[in-house]
């Protein structure tokens, strides 16, 4: 887009003091991109392996239950919870609510805390499954 370089740019990322709302905002995009790539690939692999054969499924389980697979799995579930919660936060913001500084900060912090709690709860429940 043509722009007159002599005109000033508005102050950008570098001058602001970091706050939870900024973290949640960029995490929404990062977790979304992670889920859309790694998460989607894992879902497709799981389903295709299940439809192919017991051996193909065993290959998936072997990778998924290795330390690396569990690390990715925990990361994906955290990303899912964080993206879901910050997505719900976006719905509230889309309606024009929650822009007061203290409210905005509080709900940003709530999404961070709740996504961690849900991830821990989910994995405590899943280790009970065969």
């Amino acid at each position, binding site marked *: 887009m*043509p722009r007159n370089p002599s005109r000033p740019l508005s102050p950008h990322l570098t001058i602001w003091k970091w706050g939870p709302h900024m973290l949640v905002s960029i995490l929404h995009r990062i977790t979304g991109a992670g889920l859309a790539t790694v998460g989607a*690939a894992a879902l497709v692999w799981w389903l295709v392996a*299940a*439809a192919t054969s017991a051996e193909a499924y065993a290959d998936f389980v072997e990778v998924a239950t290795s330390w690396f697979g569990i690390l990715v799995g925990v990361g994906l579930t955290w990303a899912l919870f964080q993206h*879901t919660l910050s997505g719900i936060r976006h*719905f509230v913001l889309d309606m024009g609510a929650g822009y007061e500084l203290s409210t905005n900060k509080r709900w940003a912090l709530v999404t961070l805390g709740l996504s961690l709690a849900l991830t821990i709860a989910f994995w405590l*429940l899943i280790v009970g*499954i065969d």
Partner: protein
Amino acid sequence: MRVRSAIGEVRGLGSARSGAHHWWLERLTSISTLLLFIWFMVSILRMPSLGHGPVVEWLSSPLVAIPMLLLIVSTFWHLKLGLQVVIEDYVHEEGTKLFSITLLNFFTIAGAASAVFAVLKIAFGGDAS
């Protein structure tokens, strides 16, 4: 020196008439994906085992295969809309942008088709192994 600002170039041309639609579909698919993922996560936690036999048996039930197919379509649709915005925000060169979005569409459809085929094979195949 150019005296016309960027806004002057586009003023009067109107909007592209597709931004609001994209925005709305992103919200719509986020709600459907959210509901389907609540079902999916609860179902996973309620499975007695995540081994091959139990998973195939679970997926072969219509009451599981149908929401699973909806989940695949909803999720892939939503991720395509989301990643497209990310590309549009960071890739500014028109050729690279078009190429990236084309690749995104190809991978989205290929991924969704593979997942849908897998579920249908299990659902229609009876004994899938």
